[in-house]
């Protein structure tokens, strides 16, 4: 069905089509409308989900952990300070390998207070053991949330599906949705790997493990993330086969003979496409590499792909506040360190707190990347100075 939907509406609709067993969420700001819209589906009897309205995001994730540990397909949604308040619980979900799926309308973190879109909240959660998907469009958000459920359950890892706050969460877009029945059939029922209430085979979930076992459990968790990339590729292929459209972990745009590319995630990829098209008309050999999966970090794919280019401009919509640029820049530069051929890497931070990022900004970056050098180590695009 072709519909006009905001990112929030589209992700809530995806949740309706998924029909999770339990949704536990904090229903008001900083959460977006996703939870509010989903709660109307619950009230109308359009889903079978148990909806738990809790008193904080910390409690929301705690309730999700309980639900997922007892074998329920569990989802939630949050943003910004809400995700920050969940922080402690994110690690527990990760360590317990519970396939909770959460949509995040990625937004800035206080202080100063700001409600608009950047990647600070999601990226601050990067070491919590969650899969992380960043979407370019509302359509991709709808599709990715559905995929994330299957990926999370097959990989036994929790997953964040991020859409850029306001830029996608509150903007209307034409999307094509699937039949509810088809989504539910494709996902199938969730079968947890253990039964919490089997009296004949009792288990203990979340034990204390000290010097004797903690490290060994962590090593297993790391292995789960190591093995997640093929699972993602497998589910993406299944999705494409079933629904006739799909995505890759890393996507290229007009890179065939490109000398300079920009490397980034999220909605700004659309802006960069505009700039690439305009520059291509002017005969410039430029392209874009879009990262869709941030965790696991797909180093196996990035290393061979990016060493083809002379120069790569790395665009971060968050900063590590370390004086060494953003997350993508630091991780990509370490990925390429021992590559036989290393492109020149140029670091750009842009769009913090929802600051507008235009095709002209992208064109200006391309001019520098084509030249292979720039005056500062990290460039803060669009900041008044």
């Amino acid at each position, binding site marked *: 069905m072709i519909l006009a939907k905001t990112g929030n509406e589209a992700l809530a609709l995806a949740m309706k089509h998924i029909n999770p067993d339990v949704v536990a969420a904090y229903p008001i700001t900083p959460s977006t409308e996703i939870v509010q819209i989903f709660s109307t589906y619950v009230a109308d009897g359009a889903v079978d989900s148990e909806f738990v309205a809790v008193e904080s995001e910390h409690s929301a994730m705690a309730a999700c952990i309980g639900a997922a540990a007892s074998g329920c397909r569990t989802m939630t949604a949050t943003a910004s300070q809400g995700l920050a308040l969940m922080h402690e619980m994110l690690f527990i979900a990760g*360590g317990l*390998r519970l396939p909770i799926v959460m949509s995040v309308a990625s937004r800035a973190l206080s202080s100063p207070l700001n409600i608009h879109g950047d990647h600070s909240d999601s990226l601050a959660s990067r070491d919590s053991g969650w899969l992380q998907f960043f979407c370019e469009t509302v359509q991709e958000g709808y599709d990715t949330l559905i995929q994330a459920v299957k990926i999370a359950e097959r990989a036994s890892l929790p997953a964040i599906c991020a859409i850029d706050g306001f830029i996608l969460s509150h903007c209307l877009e034409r999307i094509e949705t699937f039949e509810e029945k088809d989504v539910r059939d494709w996902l199938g029922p969730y079968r947890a*790997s253990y039964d919490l209430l089997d009296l004949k085979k*009792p288990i*203990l*979930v979340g034990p204390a493990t000290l010097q004797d076992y903690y490290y*060994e459990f962590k090593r*297993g968790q790391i*292995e789960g993330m190591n093995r997640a990339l093929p699972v993602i590729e497998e589910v993406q292929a299944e999705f494409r086969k079933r629904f006739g459209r799909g995505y890759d972990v890393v996507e290229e745009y007009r890179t065939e003979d490109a000398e300079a590319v920009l490397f980034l995630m999220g909605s700004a990829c659309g802006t960069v496409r505009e700039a690439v098209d305009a520059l291509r008309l002017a005969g410039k050999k430029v392209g874009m590499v879009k990262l869709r999966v941030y965790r696991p970090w797909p180093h196996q794919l990035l290393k061979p792909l990016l060493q083809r280019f002379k120069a790569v401009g790395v665009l971060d919509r968050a900063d590590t506040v370390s004086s060494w640029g953003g997350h993508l820049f630091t991780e990509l530069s370490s990925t390429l360190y021992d590559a036989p051929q290393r492109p020149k890497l140029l670091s750009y931070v842009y769009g913090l707190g929802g600051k507008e990022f235009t095709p002209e900004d992208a064109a200006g970056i391309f001019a520098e990347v084509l030249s292979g050098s720039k005056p500062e180590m990290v460039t803060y695009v669009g900041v008044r100075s």
Partner: protein
Amino acid sequence: MARLKKWQELPCGAIIEDMEAVRENKTGAWRSERPVWNKDKCISCYTCWLYCPDAAIVINDGKVAGINYDYCKGCGICASVCPKKVQAITMEKERK
């Protein structure tokens, strides 16, 4: 102590499937106070058994038969839930 398992041998997620591991982990040494159970006062109402977070109330032939000090952490819940008229459990300082 059983042989320590390799990481590859552990279940997915922080789960203990082998309940012997829990039995081996004797938590009684954590106590700073110990509950002392008075057999003559006890009416076997099971309230302490119901509330004990460490399953340390011993039951024999359907009756409360004492406290398992291997696992009792000395939290004092049993003493506080024991009915006021009965007071069969009192807390005492743990002797070193």
